[in-house]
């Protein structure tokens, strides 16, 4: 049985005729003999927000690093629109304290921007007050906004965000996802982001891809949240531990279980392909 592939008609494009910015098929990746990704296919259309969800160790970050060309591909095909402008916000950015760097210097690293441009974009992400602050002295939420501004300075057609809401409190997270939705509308760019929390991104996303080494299910956020494959992975944790698992650090044993699960299946039992043939 072949793992589910994402079909283009599931993307709900705003413009049916638009060419995909990026398409990938048959993506596979192994690290030290362990299968991290298996036969992944997806397509990113202009002006659409696609969210990747999945447990820790599901290969989400590996997948976007492959799509961005930060990792050399091992299997499959990745096709980027020629000259595609990408803005990237990596996971857990920390700037070492040995580097004296103000936010304005940090923004300037990406290219030759005028002070007015940099201030304007910082203003748009509501972080203009940290313009002259050393980058190590700003809060987690402010840093994510600065990183967003840095990505937007490139006038991207595609914005790739690896857990944009990490290190941000719940109220801040909602504000951040709303901001991402607004950015898509204002800058007319596609967004590919990773999130742990489907319910928080639901309002701001067009398509959800549930990833656990392979594509488990894909579609509209409402459909995915009711999908058996999704519930198999997230359902158990949602029952009793909803508050805990959603509003705090995600690195806990709840997801740890899932990692072990993945490791086992990767060892050769391949139970994960069960029930994966049906996509919405």
């Amino acid at each position, binding site marked *: 049985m072949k793992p589910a592939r994402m079909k283009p008609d599931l993307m709900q494009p705003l413009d049916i005729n638009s060419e995909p910015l990026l398409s990938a098929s048959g993506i596979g990746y192994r690290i030290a003999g362990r299968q991290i990704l298996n036969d992944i296919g997806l397509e990113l259309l202009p002006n659409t927000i696609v969210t990747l969800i999945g447990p820790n160790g599901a290969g989400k970050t590996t997948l976007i690093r492959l799509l*961005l060309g930060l990792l050399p591909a091992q299997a499959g095909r990745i096709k980027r629109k020629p000259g595609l402008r990408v803005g990237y916000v*990596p996971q857990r950015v920390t700037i070492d304290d040995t*580097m*004296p760097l103000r936010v304005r210097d940090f923004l300037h*690293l990406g290219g030759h921007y005028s002070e007015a441009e940099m201030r304007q974009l910082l203003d748009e992400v509501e972080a203009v007050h940290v313009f002259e602050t050393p980058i190590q002295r700003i809060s987690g939420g402010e840093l994510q906004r600065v990183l967003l501004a840095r990505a937007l300075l490139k006038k991207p057609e595609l914005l790739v965000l690896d857990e944009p809401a990490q290190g941000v409190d719940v109220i801040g997270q909602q504000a951040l996802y709303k901001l991402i939705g607004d950015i898509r509308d204002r800058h007319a760019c596609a967004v590919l982001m990773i999130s742990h929390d489907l319910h928080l991104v639901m309002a701001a996303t067009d398509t959800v891809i549930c990833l656990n080494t392979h594509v488990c299910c894909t579609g509209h956020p409402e459909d995915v949240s009711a999908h058996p494959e999704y519930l198999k992975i997230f359902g158990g944790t949602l029952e009793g531990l909803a508050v805990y698992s959603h509003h705090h650090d995600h690195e806990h044993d709840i997801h740890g279980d899932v990692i072990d699960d993945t490791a086992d299946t990767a060892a050769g039992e391949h139970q994960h392909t069960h029930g994966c043939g049906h996509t919405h």
Partner: protein
Amino acid sequence: MDDFIINALLAGIALALVAGPLGCVVVWRRMAYFGDTLAHAALLGVALAVSAKLLPQVGVALVGIGLAVLLFWLEKQREISTDTLLGILSHSALALGLIVLSIIQRESSGIDLMAYLFGDILAINRSELGWMYLGVVAILLAWWKLWPGLLSISVHEDLARTDGVPVAALRFAFMLMLALVIAVAINVVGILLVTALLIIPAASARLFSSTPVQMVLLSMLFATLSVISGLGSSLQWDVPAGPMIVVMAALVFFVAHLAGYMRLASKY
């Protein structure tokens, strides 16, 4: 002033002008151990150069480049970490250097090991000075060209990569630049102390800088001050110049630290 003092000053300042900026990148990228490894391997370079009747600096530069290539290639695997690899390279190169030296000394006893270990800045002659300046100009030109990329990869490699910065090429180029600096430095502070002149002025400069460019300029200034005051006090008290330069650099660091604390304390 005597000729040899002027030569020594010119040599020291030349080294300070490159050690400052490169030292900043060494500090940012946590490459102090790599600097040490290059320095230890330099002894092998000296020994090989002497036996081939070449200028010692040429041997040091060539062995440094070879080491950079070897490390670059070894780093492609993941099972052994970079600091372990550096430990292996550093000590095996040092051991090999000592063996080659002992063979040379068996045949002729003309090699002064101490001069290479701790530097012999007062013995630098005009032609050596000329070679040093050639090396320094080459390093500064490369620096001028590569600075935006070097800064970018020092801040965040993945962001640099998505900006289209050739990360691997820059890392390699920087290793080669460091190998050249070690070759330049060997007459001034010697193999054992060369890393000090890279990292101490840069570390002092960090305390007073709020931008990368400030840190680079200040580290040049601190390195130059250490060279001048170290050379002066070495002549005054008749102690070895190389170690004295490093002591002065360390003194600047501790005074800078103290001043930093005082400034912080005065705010409350």
